[in-house]
């Protein structure tokens, strides 16, 4: 005669599950991090061979310890920086004061006019991090707007609607040319 196995009462299963749920609810952190991604340059070798860059090709951005901006020797403001950088990086082959330009051919986008300009960023040890990020952000915004314009002109699409190859082509045609000065020795 088969013995009847008594059924296990499962009414407390819910309580156990709730306990586990509470544990995971407390420990979970679903915050996603966002940020400005940059690539540091490799360390420079000790040689005095300075790369000669023509003065018209450089836009000097200085941030002092009081978070004041100096762009090409003239005081400026963070709200103007994006437009200044964008104007500087827009290729203008007929302007003697603008950076030099060159024609280059890329896949997908074809021949484009590129500016040889470089934005040189230098900050003081006393500059606040918030100001530094603001400057980096405004410069990135200038380049993103140039890319958006290029994207609209070449593909008639917004930058975020491009596929991977197209994005790469645009990134190659409008590189982020921001160079951070070597920190001075004190």
């Amino acid at each position: 005669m088969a013995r009847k196995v008594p059924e296990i009462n499962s009414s407390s299963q819910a309580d156990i599950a709730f306990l586990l749920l509470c544990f995971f609810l407390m420990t979970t952190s679903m915050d996603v991090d966002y940020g400005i991604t940059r690539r540091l340059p490799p360390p420079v070798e000790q040689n005095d061979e300075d790369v000669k860059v023509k003065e018209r090709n450089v836009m000097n951005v200085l941030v002092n310890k009081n978070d004041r901006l100096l762009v090409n020797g003239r005081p400026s403001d963070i709200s103007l920086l994006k437009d200044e950088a964008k104007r500087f990086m827009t290729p203008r082959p007929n302007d003697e004061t603008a950076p030099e330009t060159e024609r280059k051919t890329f896949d997908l986008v074809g021949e484009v006019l590129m500016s040889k300009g470089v934005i040189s960023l230098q900050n003081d040890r006393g500059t606040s991090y918030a100001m530094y990020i603001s400057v980096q952000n405004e410069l990135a915004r200038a380049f993103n707007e140039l890319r958006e314009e290029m994207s609209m002109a070449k593909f008639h699409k917004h930058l975020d609607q491009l596929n991977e190859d197209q994005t790469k082509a645009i990134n190659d045609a409008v590189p982020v040319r921001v160079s951070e000065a070597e920190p001075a020795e004190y």
Partner: protein
Amino acid sequence: MGKFRKEGKKEVPQVSTSSLPDIVYMLIFFFMITTSMRDVELKVKTAMPKASEIQKLEKKALVSSIYIGPPRDTKLGTESRIQLDDAFARPADIADWIQKERDSRSEADRPLLTTALKVHKETRMGVVTDVKQELRKVGAFRINYTTLKGSALEN
């Protein structure tokens, strides 16, 4: 007419709770999959500045964070300090720390390792520059300035 007369007392039937554990288990699995345990106890304040041109930090397993900011313990002053893992550190310790972080990842992942700088907005750039110089020396070139979403002009 008796055919339509209600029989007995009018009672609301009890809601069956037998599927409650299943629902809760579903929630558990969701949280178990999305969870990532907080790995460090922050000893420094990291109120990060805002920026708009930001990218999502993908693959958290390939990100190691350096925290820089004024200590939470006010007895230690207000000067910004560097925190690696669970302890305060000096810029000179970064090389060893990066090496340790690299060793804990698989061979294929090592070149993709990103260093996230989580820096308090009132920190002076001197400390950050020192950290960046150390990172350059050991070849950890991929960095990310972790920020909040917002307009950079409000910083």
